[in-house]
C-alpha cells in the first residue's frame, strides 16, 4: 500500500487506520481428539488504509468476511497475523491494558440494534457505560454528557430511563450510535448499521451518520452489502470476496468503471427501479456458489466462478496492486503479463 498518497482530493489528510496483511483464521478441530485439522480463513491477507475524515465502504456478499474484518480491526477477535495501526499506534498484538487505553479512539456500531443493547440496562446506563469505564467523571457530569449525546443523535432526553425493548429499530440504532460516540472516537466501524432497519429508517440513520461525521470529523469503515447505500455514503469502496479485498477504488471510479470481474458481477446485480430497464438489464450472473473459506481454491479465490477465467488464475494468486492511480485490483486480467485477456474483459463490461 505504498502509492496511496497520490490518491485524490483528500490526499492532504493523514492515514488514520492502516491495515496490512490482516489475517483472521478460525481453527477447526475435528475428531475424537479435537485435533487442529484446518482453518476457516475468514479474512485472508487484507490490506487497506483509511484516511482521516473519510468513509471507506466495505462491500461483498454474505459470508465473505466483511464483519469479521471489521471486528478484527477493533481487536474484538485476536487476529492471526498482520498489523493494524490506528492513529499511528500498532494494536494488533498489544496487551489488554494498553488496548483498553486505546479503546476510546475506536468504536463500533453494530448490525442488529436489538442484540447490541443489553435488555437489562436503561438507555442512560447503556450510553453511560463507556463514560463510566473511561472518563472518570462524576455521575452528574456523566449524565450531562449522556443528555448531550442523546440530543446529538436525536433522542428525546426523556427516554433516558427506558429500556431497549421499548424502542423502535431506528431509535435503538441511535442509542447504539450514541454509545459509540460517547468517548469522542476518531474512528468508527459501522458493521452493517442499516441492514436490520426498514428503508425509511435506513435513510434517517445514514443521514445521521453523515451529519455526525461532519460535526465531529469522524472516520468510518462502513461495512454493508447494500451497494447503493455505500455509493451514497462512502468516499472509497473496497470489495471483498472470500476473505480478500479484490478491488479498492474511489467511489465514482468503481461504480462507473469496475475493473475486477467480481465487482462487475456485483454491480450488475444491483436492482433497477425501472421495470423495463430491469428486465432488459444485461446482467453478469455468476454460476455456482462461493467456495468454502476453510478450503479456498488454489490460485485466485474467484477462479471457480469468474466469467473470464484463465489458466494462470487457477495456479497463481494475483497480487493486490495499484493498476491505475488510486485504484487497487487483484486480478490477472489487468496484469501486463496477460495482455490478450484484457480487451475481452473490457468488452464484457
Amino acid at each position: 500500500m505504498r502509492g496511496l498518497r497520490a490518491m485524490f482530493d483528500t490526499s492532504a489528510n493523514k492515514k488514520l487506520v492502516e491495515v496490512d496483511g490482516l489475517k483472521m483464521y478460525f481453527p477447526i478441530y475435528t475428531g475424537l481428539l479435537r485435533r487442529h485439522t484446518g482453518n476457516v480463513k475468514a479474512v485472508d491477507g487484507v490490506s487497506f488504509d483509511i484516511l482521516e475524515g473519510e468513509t471507506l465502504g466495505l462491500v461483498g456478499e454474505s459470508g465473505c468476511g466483511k464483519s469479521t474484518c471489521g471486528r478484527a480491526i477493533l481487536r474484538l477477535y485476536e487476529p492471526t497475523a498482520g498489523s493494524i495501526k490506528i492513529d499511528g499506534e500498532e494494536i494488533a498484538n498489544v496487551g489488554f491494558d494498553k488496548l483498553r487505553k486505546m479503546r476510546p479512539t475506536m468504536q463500533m456500531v453494530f448490525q442488529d440494534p436489538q442484540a447490541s443493547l443489553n435488555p437489562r440496562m436503561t438507555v442512560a446506563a447503556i450510553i453511560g457505560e463507556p463514560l463510566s469505564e473511561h472518563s472518570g467523571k462524576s455521575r452528574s457530569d456523566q449524565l450531562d454528557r449522556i443528555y448531550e449525546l442523546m440530543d446529538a443523535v436525536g433522542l428525546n432526553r426523556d427516554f433516558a430511563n427506558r429500556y431497549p425493548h421499548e424502542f423502535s429499530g431506528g431509535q435503538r440504532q441511535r442509542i447504539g450510535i450514541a454509545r459509540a460516540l460517547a468517548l469522542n472516537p476518531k474512528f468508527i466501524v459501522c458493521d452493517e448499521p442499516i441492514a436490520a432497519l426498514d428503508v425509511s429508517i435506513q435513510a434517517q440513520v445514514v443521514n445521521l451518520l453523515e451529519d455526525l461525521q461532519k460535526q465531529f470529523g469522524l472516520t468510518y469503515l462502513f461495512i454493508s452489502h447494500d451497494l447503493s447505500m455505500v455509493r451514497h455514503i462512502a468516499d472509497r469502496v473496497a470489495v471483498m470476496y472470500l476473505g480478500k479485498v479484490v478491488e479498492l477504488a474511489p467511489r465514482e471510479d468503481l461504480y462507473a468503471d469496475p475493473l475486477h470481474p467480481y465487482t462487475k458481477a456485483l454491480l450488475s446485480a444491483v436492482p433497477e427501479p425501472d421495470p423495463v430497464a430491469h428486465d432488459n438489464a444485461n446482467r453478469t450472473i455468476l454460476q455456482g456458489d462461493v467456495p468454502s473459506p476453510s478450503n479456498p481454491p488454489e490460485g485466485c479465490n474467484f477462479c471457480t466462478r469468474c466469467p473470464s477465467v484463465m489458466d494462470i488464475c487457477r495456479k497463481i494468486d494475483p497480487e493486490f496492486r495499484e493498476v491505475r492511480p488510486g485504484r487497487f485490483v487483484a486480478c490477472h486480467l489487468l496484469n501486463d503479463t496477460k495482455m490478450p485477456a484484457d480487451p475481452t474483459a473490457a468488452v464484457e463490461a
Partner: protein
Amino acid sequence: MTDGPNQPLATSGATPAGAAPVMEMEAYRPPRNQWWDVWDQFKTHKGALLGLGFFIFALLFVYVGPLIWTIDPTFIDIRARNSGPSLAHPMGTDQLGRDTLARMMAGGQTSIAVGLTAMLLSLVLGTLIGVVAGYFRRLDGPLMRLTDLFLAMPLLPLLLVIIMLFRDQLRAAFGPEGGIFILIVFVIGITSWMQTARVVRGDVLALKEREFVLAAKSIGTPSHRMILRHVLPNVMSPIMVSATLGIANAIITESALSFLGLGFPSDFPTWGRLLFDATDWLQQNPERVMWPGLAISLTVLSVNYIGDGLRDALDPRIRGR
C-alpha cells in the same frame, strides 16, 4: 417508568440536536434507581405479595413467637401427653407432653435458617461455577467435569461419610447444635449446586455470543465487570428459579437427614424432625403431622411465589405489563 404521562407535554415533542437549552435540564427526571421499578412491578404480582406476606408471617412466627408463647419446647409435662388442641396447648402435645406450638416455633427457626443458608450456599457455588465455566473457555472442561462428578456421586452414602467424619470435630468446635447446623448447611449446599451450575453455564454460553457483550468488549470493559454488568443480570431468571426450588429442597433434605438420625439430635426440634416423629402417631393424633407438614409446604410455596414475582420484576421486558 410508568409515570411517563406526568411529564409536561412540551418535553415530549422531539428535541432536535443540540437545541435543548441548559435550563430545561431540570425538567428531565434523573435516571431512577431501578430497584424502585422492580418494587413497582413486584407489587402488581398478587401471588408474590401473598407469598411475601406469608413468609414474613412465618419469620415472625418462628422468631418473635417464642417471646410471646414462652413455654420451653423441651419442657416435659408427662400428664398432658398426646393431648389434642386446647387452650393450654393450642396445637396439642406430643407423646412426652411437650407443647407442639413451642416446638413448631423452635423447629421453624432451624428449618428456615437451614433452608435459606443452604440455598444461598448452593446458589453462590452454582452461579460461580456456571458463570466461570461458561465465560472462560479454558475452565469450561474441568469445571463441568467436576459438576458431572458431583452429579454422578451417590449422595446419601456421601452424606453419611461426611457426617461420620466431621460431626465430632464440628461439635467440639461450635457446640452440638451449631456444629450440626454448619455441617448440614454445608452438606446440603455442596450436594445441590450442580443443576444451577449447568443451567447458568448454558445461558452464559449463549449470552457471551450476543452483540451487546461484544459491544462492551469494544469499550474495553474488563471481564469481572462484564460478568457483573452484562452476564449476571441476564441469567437472573434461571438463578431465581433454582433459588426458590433450592429452599424447598434444603428443608426436605434436612428432614430426611434428621429422619435417618444424621441431622440434629433427636430432642432438637426441626419441622422435618417433628413431621417424622409424628408419623408414628398418625392414628391417634393426625393433627401432629399436619402442623409441620403445613408449615413446610406453605413456606416453600410462599418462597416459590416470591421467586416468581421477583423474576418477573427483574426482567424489564415483562415489567410494566
